[in-house]
């Protein structure tokens, strides 16, 4: 971290730059012990549907589209779409049923989420800025539609620090088939200290965390050599540090090797789901054959295994003190589709992805609840934008940045409510003057964590930057 920033963060304006780097490895955040308000939540899970999930096929029920289905869609204005020109109105591919005491209508394809409908707060009037994937993704992950800004997870890690120094505070579980638009930019710390960047973990992969252990094919590093080598290194580095008093970086470095060794144990233990009871594995929809499940053709079983395993690992990480977990469904916008960018065919591609997501997400919510952790864990479901109410070549849908859906759950969220509606088609907000923006969602999440989003700032190139730019209002209606 640049001394300049630390200087400002610490509120020492007026003194000279720099401060004693006494506790480089302290895992406290800048707001530890000085939160702006009593927190309702301690940790966050962000579920990100890469490629843009269709609100009208999943959560935002539009009977009007059933009526108009197949007729040329006419919103009464000219609409400029990303790839196509507006086709016929297209009803949801799946039927909707009502769930829970709240009676929320939810699509059959995500029926497992119906079982937790009373825990969910829906926001159906989110608006984006453009219909370009990269920008939409960055906007949701960092609050800005161009690169250069820290991820929401980095801000939370920066503010709150970690509850467990043996694990990273911000963990990312990407789609194993590839990274979404912008790649690692979606979890990079940019001008926040690098320790707040998301650490990638690939559950089920041969090497879930880069460099956690020596290369398997090493012909000389044995466990004994590793252990003895660390002991020797500590001795030599301590000698170097002792000869150079007053430089806390050198002692921090020695400690970083101790922590590395402990992280090897903690992370391995956290990622080992083998001892989870069968009913828990079933709750998350894990496949008997595990991560190697066949997905030559996109299918429900595989998508459930992939997403469910990430959700289960997320729970284990949250239990062990990880502050922010970002879970991805879907890879880049390549072919064959393994993401939500269903220009060609909603049913074929959304179907398995949505069911897999719903099983995993519902499993996570139920599991956190039965462990008493849902009360202080916020879950945010989001995507880069929505999809159009009209068809693209009959069975697909083009981008809709004009309105889409988020839902939140747990951690002080009022369940069973819907705030903000879209219009009769799910084309734009019903009240165009009062849409919800990502800033409001982020402000609300920070609020639940005890943070005033206007007061968590870092000066960078002359601007006191914050996650919510110069916008954002806490959505009181969805806070319990």
């Amino acid at each position, binding site marked *: *971290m640049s*001394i300049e920033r630390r200087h400002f963060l610490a509120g020492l*304006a007026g003194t*000279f*730059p*720099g*401060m*004693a780097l006494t506790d*480089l490895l302290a895992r406290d955040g800048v707001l530890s012990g000085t939160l702006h308000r009593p927190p309702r939540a301690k940790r966050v899970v962000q579920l990100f549907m890469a490629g843009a999930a269709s609100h009208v096929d999943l959560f935002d029920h539009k009977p009007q589209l059933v009526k108009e289905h197949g007729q040329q869609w006419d919103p009464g204005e000219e609409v*400029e779409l*990303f790839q196509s020109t507006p086709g016929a109105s297209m009803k949801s591919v799946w039927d909707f049923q009502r769930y829970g005491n709240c009676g929320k209508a939810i699509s059959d394809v995500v029926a497992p989420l119906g079982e937790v409908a009373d825990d969910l707060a829906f926001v159906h009037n989110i608006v984006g800025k*453009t219909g*370009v*994937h*990269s*920008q939409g993704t960055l906007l949701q992950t960092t609050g800005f*539609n*161009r*690169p*250069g800004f820290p991820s929401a997870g980095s801000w939370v890690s920066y503010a709150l620090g970690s509850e467990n120094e043996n694990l990273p505070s911000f963990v990312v579980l990407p789609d194993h088939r590839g*990274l979404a*638009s*912008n*790649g*690692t930019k979606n979890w*990079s710390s940019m*001008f926040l*200290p*690098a*320790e707040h*960047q998301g*650490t990638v973990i690939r559950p089920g992969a041969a090497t879930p965390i*880069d*460099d*956690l252990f*020596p290369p398997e094919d*090493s012909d*000389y590093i044995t466990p004994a*050599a*590793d252990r*003895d080598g660390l002991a020797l*290194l500590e001795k*030599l*580095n301590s000698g*170097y540090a002792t000869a*150079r008093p*007053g*430089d806390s*970086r050198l002692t921090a470095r020695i400690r*970083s*090797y101790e*922590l*590395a060794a*402990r*992280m090897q144990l903690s992370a391995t233990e956290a990622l080992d789901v083998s001892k989870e009871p069968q009913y828990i594995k079933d709750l998350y929809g894990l496949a008997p054959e595990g991560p190697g499940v066949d997905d030559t053709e996109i299918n429900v079983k595989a998508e459930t295994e992939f997403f469910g395993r990430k959700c289960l690992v997320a729970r284990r990480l949250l239990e062990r003190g990880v502050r922010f977990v970002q879970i991805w469904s879907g890879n*880049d916008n390549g*072919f064959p589709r393994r993401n939500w960018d269903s220009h060609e065919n909603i049913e074929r591609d959304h179907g398995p992805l949505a069911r897999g997501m719903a099983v995993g997400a519902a499993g996570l919510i139920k599991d956190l609840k039965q462990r008493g952790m849902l009360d202080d864990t916020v879950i945010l479901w989001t995507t880069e934008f929505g999809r159009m109410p009209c068809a693209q070549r009959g069975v697909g849908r083009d981008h809709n940045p004009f309105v889409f859906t988020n839902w939140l759950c747990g951690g002080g969220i009022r369940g069973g409510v819907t705030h903000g509606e879209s219009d009769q088609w799910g084309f734009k907000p019903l009240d165009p003057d009062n849409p919800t923006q990502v800033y409001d969602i982020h402000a609300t999440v920070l609020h639940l964590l005890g943070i005033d989003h206007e007061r968590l700032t870092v*000066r960078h190139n*002359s*601007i006191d930057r914050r996650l919510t730019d110069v916008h954002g209002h806490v959505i009181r209606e969805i806070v319990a």
Partner: protein
Amino acid sequence: MKFPLLPSLFAAASAVLPVHGAADDPLAILEQNCLSCHNAHDAKGDVVFETAPIQIDDLSQILDSISGPDPEMPKDRDALSAAEVATLAKWIEAGAPIPEGRVLKDTYVPGRDWWSLQPIEQGQVADATHSNDPWVKNEIDAFVLAKLREKNLAPSPEAEPRVLVRRLYYDLTGLPPQPEEIDAFVTDYARDPEGTWAALVDRLLASPNYGEHWARHWLDVARYGETHGYDKDKPRPNAWPYRDYVIRSLNDDKPWSRFVREQIAGDVLFPGDPDGIVALGFIAAGPWDFIAHYEVGEKKVDGRIAKHMDRDDMVSATFNAFMSTTVQCAQCHHHKFDPVSMEDYYRLHAVFAAVDRAPRVYDLDPEVQRKRERLSVEIGKAEGAIKTLDQRIKNEGGPELARLRERIGVLKKAGAEGVKKDPAYGYHSQIVKSPDTEKWVQVDLGEPVAIEAIELIGAHDEFGGIGAGFGFPVRYRVEVADNLDFTENRRVIADRTDADQANPGIAPVRLAAKGETARYLRVTATRLAERKNDYILALGEIRVLDEAKTNLAAGRSVGALDSIEQGVRWGRKNLVDEKFATGGDPAAARELAELLEKERALLAKIDTPEMRDERAAHEANLAKLREQLGALPEGKLVYAAATHFRKFGNVVPTEGQPREIHLLQRGDIGSPGDLMHPGAPALWDGGTPEFDLSKDATEGEARAALANYLADPANPLTWRSVVNRLWLHHFGRGIVDSPNDFGRMGMAPTHPELLDFLAAKLRNDPDQSLKAIHRLIVTSATWRQASAHDPERAAVDANNAYYWRANRRRLSAEELRDSVLFVAGKLNPERGGPSFQDFVIEKPQHSPHYQYHLYDPDDPKTQRRSIYRMIVRSKTQPFLTTLDCADPSQMVAKRDETTTALQALALLNNPFMETMAGHLAERVESNPDPITAAFNRATGRAPHANERAALAAYAKTHGLANACRVILNLSEFAYVD
């Protein structure tokens, strides 16, 4: 907000204090003092003064907040004068009226009363006693000593020679010295310290390693990367010449003003010099949204938003890098802290209004290059025109045509799957550039025979993805005659020259000849099939059948206007060898033929003669243009700012015609204000915000004006900015520790006079030599101090802001990687040229996956210095990122320095480290004392006895490679005293 001001620099301040609105005009006072926050958009505190009625809970709040000894408002600004408060009081009393229709606007732009905007002073040490102190080796020391004494501090003694030499190597070259070099230096230094030191400094500054090391610092600031970033993150294969340009410029010690001017307008200011174009890589170095520009384009709102953001990147990068000024803050409102108005900001957009990021030829004669550019643009236009015609057909063909074509595509693919073909494909004419070239091929049947039917069978070649029907004529006629030249008794069997024919694929086209008797049969194409932007006639087989269906043409002699005789595949004789492609699905083939016929019929209705003529004209033109371009030398490409290039996707070259730039209210593309002309903020006396350009000035002249503005000797920022960057990388902290921001939100200089001394020295030096500044710095006593801690001095200045010692520094990510390679004896010395890739690209077609875990650290190509690494934006190199490498999507003035468990894991376990520790062991194993040799290479000293003993014992148990792994993880390797 209050900042520590430096009184000496503020002598001139009063002259340029911001002027409040006329004291008797309440609305002017509001606009000047209140509207930047209390406008309808920001509505701070829910108070808005934009229109009548003003929005506030209670009018009395206004007076309460602006009066009293320490008024709350205006926030962060000077209090209003008594007269102004009185004026507002009267206005409030009158009911706070604002005339109907008047909308108050923010008029406040901060003044130039700020240290960095004052003229650069010569920078002299006030008290000569400092200059005469024996500790002082040059002017730098006098400034530093003056400040130390002011703070009751004293400098530290000079560092050990062994420490100095390692520090110098790293500071100037980014690589460690060899043990032998250290030993030789230590010996010589004892004999003649100053002479030895000066010689080493000169030698290292002259080393090409210098440019490779310092280029990294500039490329961090220039946000240089070799992929676009955003979605799909495509590679930029031609970005590297800019990287080499930076290295070359630094090694050549190019005058700073030239370096600055080349990067903004080198093409205009230094025509004929390739560097003038390569340097424009700076403007293009940042991320670029491929999808929003290439796929969406400026015809759509999203494309225009992307283009706006694209220009913002150019504008911000230019001002942050060269002038440490954050103009980007004025995108949505006037800069709140520095004298940059929205107008200033959008004038800068106007400077870059004609450029895009594109590959650009840099090494050709300017005249040739202009021709190439013009031809490329013309080709793009002709292609575009043809595309437009295609689109018109597509539109008019509507769903019917779309369905037909979709089905045809499916059938073609299905057909291709079962095709059997012989390696002898058939006959192939010479290639031509225009479709409307007549070509013919004929068969001599040996004697006049009665012909019942003729079959033309299309060839099959996957070239260009064409497959069945490759080269089959679009229009043609079939004739018979009695003599070779077709002058005697010429009869037409079939004439299909009046309209384009559907391609039959490999299905035989059967023409009835009704018993005509003839010896010669000729197929004449009047419109050729497209191959790949060029045209040919090809046929798989001609069969001439008699009543008994015997093929009379088999093995006969074939003549043609021209032909390609190439290996087994193509040759005249292949036309009658009874070998031709067959198979596929016959039902599909039949359906295909039918659909092709339908398509042809449909197109015949849409494609008017006018359209056909138009297309033919474009195609002829295109062929001509391509030929002209093909005749010119190709030249080498750099990814740079460009105005003339071949249209790609929806990126259309401006040909130097600037886009119209409007001031955008709140930065919103939907709220355009006044039309803006090129200019730059007047940040010093004599500057004018709009450039003095004639009405018909070219876009290049606007960029040249900006380049000259940046390099103006009167510019107070450029010179301070660069010397501060040099200082930063020698001392670990800038004199101004916000190197990209010298404005009011940045840091104040710790040593303003020293900063000005260095800035003036560089500016006034006829050679504007950076190396001269480096030399001055590293020969100073200040730089040569030991880095040892001292509790007493630390109690006064814990952070060493006044340089009472040297700062111990950690190696940057690249220095560490390069040093590991160097120490292991594996550093590949190859300089310049295309970057190495320490990853494998999977799925390159759509969104390339950059897979770092698949690369082989033992591949010598990857063992070059890190400056030659291909920098990917969407997936930064994980090992280097963990070690605080700069992110290429933002301008990084100064690296972070974090210490994390993940770093320890990377240094212990990354395959690169594992491999190199093994190589270090191999390198030293034949040495009589391998432990000492390895330790010495890594740290620049021999291990102490106890260190040696411990490492040797460990090596005895676990092997030398493990001991080397420990050595490469030593703090002493990673830090420089």
